[in-house]
Every structure is written in structure tokens, then in C-alpha cells.
């Protein structure tokens, strides 16, 4: 993996120049580094020529975009305001299932309302925001770690309710005469079909019948693009995925722009003040509770949108999907921590690093190793791997390890998180100073400012009971 750190750690001087010159350069440099790495992976791994390389890069970009979106939304909560929300998966689920209920065909099983795509997206975001308000109203008075537990419990309540067969299909208003009956459902374990989803606008560029391409024609544009890509051996499905990935990248840009606007607005400055010291913000006359509820709702709406873009593209979802499990929240959180909470560039950066190096990278490494090194059949159990190793035959153990890289990569994720927290709790970019005033004073060397992150004179122990929110990964610390 050491080679994969190259784009990150190389040539400090150049990096610091990028730091000053702007974030677009940094993200571009990192993405180019990741692309080079995965091109090498694709060439080495048992894929099919140029088409394989394109498909690999598409997949990496796709995951990067998905994580970047959700990480940006979480950054609004944790990075900007210091709200420790670890119920991201729950808010995503609320968004996705509202979207499904609004757009699923009325004849489906379970049926929906058959409304157009944009109604579903707006509705999903609104309901996710309402769910956020519902949780925020009681929970925001609590300490950060309590808020964490409430939000993660909320996400589990949502997931367990979706799994329940009692909500598989239900009828609203059946006992009220003047309103027509309305049958909806979660589909529980059987899942729910979403023939109308955000990939449809992309597909309609290429196909005349986007919901079922096989039954329709290819449009003029589709003909041109497909034949163009076919010359380098890229299949139609990959071309469509590239289209959707570009759409996702546009949404990442939109999220980024929105967060920048929020961060630089007076509203955003209050949020940062709440993060650093809520009491001070309060005594300056800011109704911090309202600010927290508002920002919680905005963040949850973005999580709902991110969830819709993430989960509906398969045209089907069910509650067992990894997207709705608490572990998904932690992946998003880890990506944010890696990049650096409080920094939008760091969020995108963390999303890219997590999705590529930690999530997809190990799988490629495993494939490449098993292609080039002949280890024989991998034993199916740990016992089968260890027994030969006792007689100094390490091939089965190595093969078993390679085969288990999909689960071992989470050990790597965990260790990365621990090492980061021990040595750089603000993440890779989170330590950067932010411009709080409307005039950039950052050219002056930062002597002034908060001491919240610095160890106290008594050896760094915060007084008991004060679980400082500002000295953690929220950008309060300086290491320069």
C-alpha cells in the first residue's frame, strides 16, 4: 500500500503551494494520482484491455462521488457545527423510502404514488429534513456523545421498522370516508422497485425507452457515443454508468458549492462559533438552538438526496442493503475524519481516499496478487490455513489471507482510524485555518485565536464533565 500514499505524501513543497493556490488544484492532483494508481491496477489485474481500464476508473469515480456527497453533508453537521450525528444511514433510508413511496408505480408491489422523479427527490429531501428536525428538537440539548447515541439509535429504529413485515403493505385513511384509500408499503425484506430513478434522465439520452432499454431504440446521440466508446472496447452499460457518474460529480460540485456558501455566510459563521464554544455564541445573542435545528435539517436533507442518488440507481432497494446499516455511517464518518472535519476540500479528499485506497484498492491488490503468485486453492477455513503453516508451508495461509482481503480491509480501515486519531485527530486537511471574517486575514501568521485544542497547563486534562467538543477533530487545533 505504500506506493498508494504517493500522491498524498509526495513533495511537501509542491503540496504547500497547492494549499495556497486553491483547492481545485489539490483535488485534481489527488484524483490524477488515484487514476494513475488504478490504471496500473487495471492493467495488472485480469481485466479486458482498455475497456477494463475505463470501467475501473468509472467505478472508482462513482464510489468517490457517492462518498464525497455524503461526507460533505456530514461535514455540515460535524465539521461546521460540531454536531456528532452518527445516524447518517437512517436519514439516507428515510430519503430513499420516501422517494420510493412517491415514485413507485401505483400497480407495483408494494405500490407507490407514481409521481414524477423530481417530486420524489424533493419529497425525499423534505421528509429527511423533517426526520432530522424530529430528532434534533429533543436531542440537541444533549451532550455530543448522547446526541451520537440518539442518532445511531434512530437509524436503527428506521432500519428495523423497514425490515418489519407489519409495514410491508399498509393502507392509509381506510377508516376516513371522504379521503380515498391510499395503499403504500416498505416491501420489508422483499424490497421495493423503483423503475423511476435518477438514472432515467441519463438513460433517456441514449435510449428511447429508458426504463427498459431492450424494448426501445438507441437515440442518435446514443448511437454516436456508443460507437465512439466501442472502438476502445467499452460496453454500453459502462457508457451509461459513466453518464450517471458524471451526474453524480455534478451533484458533488453542487454540494461543495452549497457548503461553501453556507460556510461563508453569516449563518455559517454562527455555526462555527457554536462548534468552538456554544456558550460564547449564545451570550452574543445568537439563538444557538434554532441554528442547530436549521443546520441539522439542511444536512439531513442533503443526506436524503445523497441516499437517493446512491441507492436508487439499481432500481431496487431493500432494508438489508449495506447502505442502511450503521456501518455505512461509520464509513462516511471515517472518510470525513481522514479528509479532515470542517474542510470541504478535505471532505471530498477523504471521500476519494476512502473510496479508492481503503475500499476498492485492497480488492485490486488481492486480485493482482492472486493473478501473479501461484498459491494454489485457498483453504476455506482458518484452520485449513494454519495447519500447513505449522509445518512451514505458508502458501495456504497466504492464499487464505488474500481470499479474505474483502473483510481484512476493514481491519485496515480501523487501524487507519486509530492511527489518525492518535497522531492527527484533525484529519489530513482539517487543521487548516478557516477564514471566519469576511476579509481574509489569514496571511498574517496565526498567533491569535483559540486555545481550546491546546493542552492545558495541568497536563492537558480537561476538567471532568467537560467533554470538549472543540478540541477534537473540528479544526480547533493548530500544529504549525
Amino acid at each position, binding site marked *: 500500500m505504500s506506493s498508494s500514499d504517493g500522491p498524498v505524501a509526495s513533495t511537501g513543497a509542491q503540496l504547500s503551494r497547492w494549499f495556497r493556490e486553491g483547492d481545485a488544484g489539490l483535488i485534481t492532483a489527488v484524483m490524477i494520482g488515484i487514476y494513475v494508481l488504478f490504471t496500473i491496477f487495471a492493467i495488472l489485474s485480469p481485466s479486458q484491455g482498455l475497456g477494463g481500464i475505463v470501467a475501473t476508473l468509472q467505478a472508482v469515480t462513482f464510489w468517490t462521488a457517492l462518498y464525497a456527497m455524503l461526507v460533505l453533508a456530514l461535514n455540515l453537521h460535524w465539521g461546521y457545527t460540531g454536531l456528532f450525528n452518527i445516524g447518517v444511514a437512517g436519514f439516507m433510508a428515510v430519503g430513499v423510502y420516501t422517494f420510493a413511496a412517491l415514485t413507485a408505480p401505483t400497480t407495483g408491489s408494494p405500490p407507490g404514488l407514481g409521481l414524477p422523479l423530481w417530486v420524489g427527490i424533493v419529497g425525499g429531501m423534505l421528509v429527511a429534513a423533517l426526520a432530522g428536525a424530529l430528532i434534533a428538537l429533543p436531542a440537541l440539548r444533549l451532550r455530543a456523545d448522547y446526541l451520537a447515541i440518539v442518532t445511531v439509535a434512530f437509524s436503527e429504529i428506521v432500519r428495523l421498522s423497514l425490515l418489519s413485515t407489519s409495514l410491508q403493505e399498509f393502507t392509509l385513511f381506510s377508516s376516513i370516508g371522504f379521503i380515498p384509500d391510499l395503499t403504500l408499503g416498505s416491501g420489508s425484506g422483499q424490497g421495493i422497485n423503483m423503475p423511476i430513478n435518477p438514472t432515467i434522465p441519463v438513460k433517456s439520452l441514449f435510449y428511447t425507452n429508458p426504463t427498459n432499454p431492450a424494448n426501445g431504440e438507441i437515440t442518435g446521440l446514443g448511437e454516436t457515443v456508443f460507437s465512439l466508446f466501442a472502438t476502445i472496447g467499452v460496453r454500453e452499460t459502462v457508457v451509461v454508468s459513466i453518464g450517471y457518474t458524471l451526474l453524480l460529480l455534478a451533484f458533488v460540485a453542487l454540494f461543495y458549492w452549497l457548503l461553501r456558501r453556507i460556510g461563508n455566510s453569516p449563518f455559517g459563521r454562527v455555526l462555527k462559533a457554536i462548534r468552538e464554544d456554544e456558550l460564547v455564541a449564545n451570550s452574543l445573542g445568537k439563538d444557538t438552538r434554532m441554528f442547530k435545528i436549521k443546520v441539522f435539517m439542511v444536512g439531513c436533507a442533503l443526506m436524503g438526496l445523497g441516499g437517493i442518488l446512491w441507492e436508487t440507481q439499481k432500481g431496487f432497494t431493500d432494508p438489508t442493503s449495506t447502505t442502511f446499516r450503521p456501518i455505512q455511517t461509520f464509513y462516511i464518518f471515517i472518510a470525513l475524519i481522514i479528509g479532515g472535519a470542517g474542510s470541504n476540500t478535505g471532505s471530498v479528499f477523504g471521500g476519494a481516499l476512502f473510496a479508492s485506497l481503503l475500499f476498492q484498492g485492497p480488492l485490486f491488490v488481492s486480485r493482482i496478487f492472486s493473478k501473479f503468485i501461484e498459491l494454489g486453492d485457498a483453504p476455506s477455513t482458518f*484452520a485449513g490455513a494454519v495447519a500447513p503453516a505449522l509445518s512451514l508451508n505458508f502458501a495456504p495461509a497466504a492464499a487464505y489471507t488474500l481470499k479474505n482481503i474483502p473483510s481484512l480491509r476493514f481491519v485496515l480501515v480501523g487501524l*487507519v*482510524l*486509530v492511527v489518525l*486519531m*492518535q497522531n492527527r485527530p484533525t484529519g489530513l486537511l482539517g487543521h487548516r485555518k478557516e477564514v471566519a471574517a469576511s476579509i481574509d486575514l489569514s496571511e498574517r501568521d496565526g498567533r491569535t485565536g483559540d486555545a481550546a485544542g491546546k493542552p492545558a497547563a495541568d497536563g492537558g486534562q480537561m476538567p471532568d464533565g467537560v467533554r470538549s*467538543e472543540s478540541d477534537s477533530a473540528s479544526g480547533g487545533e493548530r500544529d504549525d
Partner: protein
Amino acid sequence: MVADWRVSIVERPKTALFGLFLVGLAVDLVLKLFGVQLTLGSANLLGGSLGLGRLITLVWDGIVIGLGIGLAGIGLSMTYSILSFANFAHGDYITSGAFAGWAVAWLVAGFGSGQLDGNVLYLATVGFGPTGPSPADLAINTIKTPIAVFGGLLVAVLATIALTLVIDRFIFKPMRNQGGITTLIASIGVALALRYLIVFVFGASNRGLTGGSPKLILAAVDGQFALANKRSTIILAQNGNAPTDVFYWLFPVVDIGSYSTELLSVTGAELTIVATSLALMYGLHVTLQRTKLGKAMRAMADNEDLARVTGIPTERVVRATWIIGGGLSGAAGYLIALERGTLAFNLGWLLLLLIFAAVILGGIGSIYGAMVGGILIGLTNSVSLVWIPSSFSTAAAFVIMILVLVIRPDGLFGGVTTA
């Protein structure tokens, strides 16, 4: 008296509402027991029907689950109050303890039944593999193979203590000066790493553990309470011809008319978890009340700097906290797996939120709070089945936790820290 009530209702409307809700549930439960149903039009308002045996079974299940959760919660509560961070790795300590303990239990049972040869690695990975003796072949249960069960318990405790101390030394100790949230995030990393290391070694599948679990059945036979170890015995007795060649015992005194029904069926594993966890809790209570350790812990939970200034060896107290907390969580994991009869890599992770709920309900820092909170969460989890479908029972426990956080963020035993 009435005036007092009125004042408290006005001052704390949320608490009053919650209290009213609980009273409503209690009334409904009583009406259900007596088979009374109050209706308004076609809508069922209160009551219904509920067998006494079913209620007793639900309460017993709740207590069994709750004691396991409470035992696991003590460690979480102690580390929360003394080290000031919510340890998300606690669930995976529980899983680690369960796997370590059951590996040894399987090895001992395999040795006892002469199936150890050629199966050592299979048994040591708790049956991860296609070939080897099945749980039914090993037939581990508290009555027939007590050495395997309690040997496994001992190892579960010791192994988890060792694990928590090693993790503390390399991960949490260098972070003592950092904030609670930073350490919390690191503990999420520890949880992930531990869980998938367990998958690497023991596999991701859910495996059976025990075999031939003995039962004890409590029933009412013609108005007298009776105990038996087979359902058929009870049925024979209720028909008027109690067998003499098998275990059957009538409670001599009580007589409640001509009531005949099966009330409760208790497995040996359930009795083991109840007895063991009560014993461990009592032992902890004595330790913390009678020794200086308990006082030092209380002092440290209150104000760490002050404790250090007074000469309390804070690092040693932290180590004692990990030893007690880790040992109890290992025991809890092992016992919960024994009671369920199955074990998978995500055992502790799935329990963790319930344990958090119990600890918060009881009040963070209070070990009695953790115990009581555990039992309350266990009862909520199982008795809620009277009103809601089983798929919502875990959600109900979480809702109770959120309500308690809103009404009384300090928990039931709030303010009382560590013993």
C-alpha cells in the same frame, strides 16, 4: 399530597405524560390478564386477552436478556465515567470474550468426548469448517458438561481482560489527554479492526454452540404448582395420572383452586446466566463497597485531577477499571452466547446499542444503574411483545432510551457514580 402531584405535573409535564403512558400500559396489562376488553364502537380501547403463562414467560425472558445486558453494561458504564469516553469497541470486547471462551469450551468438550484427535484447530475456531464434530456431537450444556461450560467462562473472562489491557496500553493510553470524542472515534476504529479480525479467524457464519439443553417446566396442575423436566410429564399430570418414574415435584402448600396451565419453561442455560451474572454483580458490589478501589474510582469519576493530587494512583485505577469492565463484558458475551445457543461475529455489535440504552437509562457511571437499566431494557424488549409485533421490540427499547434522555438525561441513578 394531591397538591404535590399537581405541582410536579405542572413543572415536569413530559415526565407526567410518560408516567401516564406507563400507568395506561399497566392497566391494559391487568385487563388483558383477566380477559376484559373495553371497546368504543368497533375500536378496541383497552384490554384483550393474555395468558398468565405467556406473561410470566415474557418477564422471565426479559430478566434473562436484561441480566446479560446489565452485566455487559457495567464495564461500559465504568469506562464511560472514569475515562470519559463512550467506548464503541465494547461490543466487540463482548464478541471476543465469547469466541475465546467458546473455543476453550469446545476444546474441553471435545477432549471429554474423545473427539479431540485431528480436530484441535476445528474446535479452537469454534467449528469453523465443513468437517468435525457438530454441536449435537459435543452436547455442551451446564448439567452434563459443567467443566466445559465453566472452564470456558473463566477463559472468556481472562482473555477479555488481557485483550482490553493490551488495547488500552497501545491505543487508549497514548490518548488520555485527548478529548472524549477523539477517543470515541478511535474506539470505533478498534471495534472495526477487532470485528473483522474475528471474521478472519472464526469466519462470518452463525454457528450453533450447545446441544441437548435440559429444561425445567413450572406449571399449575389442578391448582397446585408443579415442577418437571419434560412437557409430557406435565400433560400426564394434568390428566390426573402423574408419572412416578421421572422427575416430578409438587409445591406442597399453595393451592389456587382448579387452575391448570403451563406457566414457564426454563432452560439450564438460562438458569446459568441468571445465577452467574447475579453472583458476579454481587461480587463487584462487595469489592467496590469494601475496598479502597471503589472509593478511588468514585473519586476519579468525580474529578480526575483532584484524585491525582490526593495521591490516588490514577493509572492503576484505570487498569482496575479495564480489568473489571473487560472481565465482565467477556463473561456477558460468553453467557449470552450460551443462552442463545448460537454465536456469530456481530454478536456484540448488535448488542452494543441495547447496552448503551441500558447504561444511559440507568445513568452513566452508576454500576447499579447499569444493572437496573439492563433489566429494564430486557423487560422492554420482551414484554413489549404484548402490544407490538416482535420486529419492533428492539426499536421499542431504543425509543425508551431516547425518551429517558429527553426526560431525565442523567438517567434513573444519575448523579450516583460508580457504586
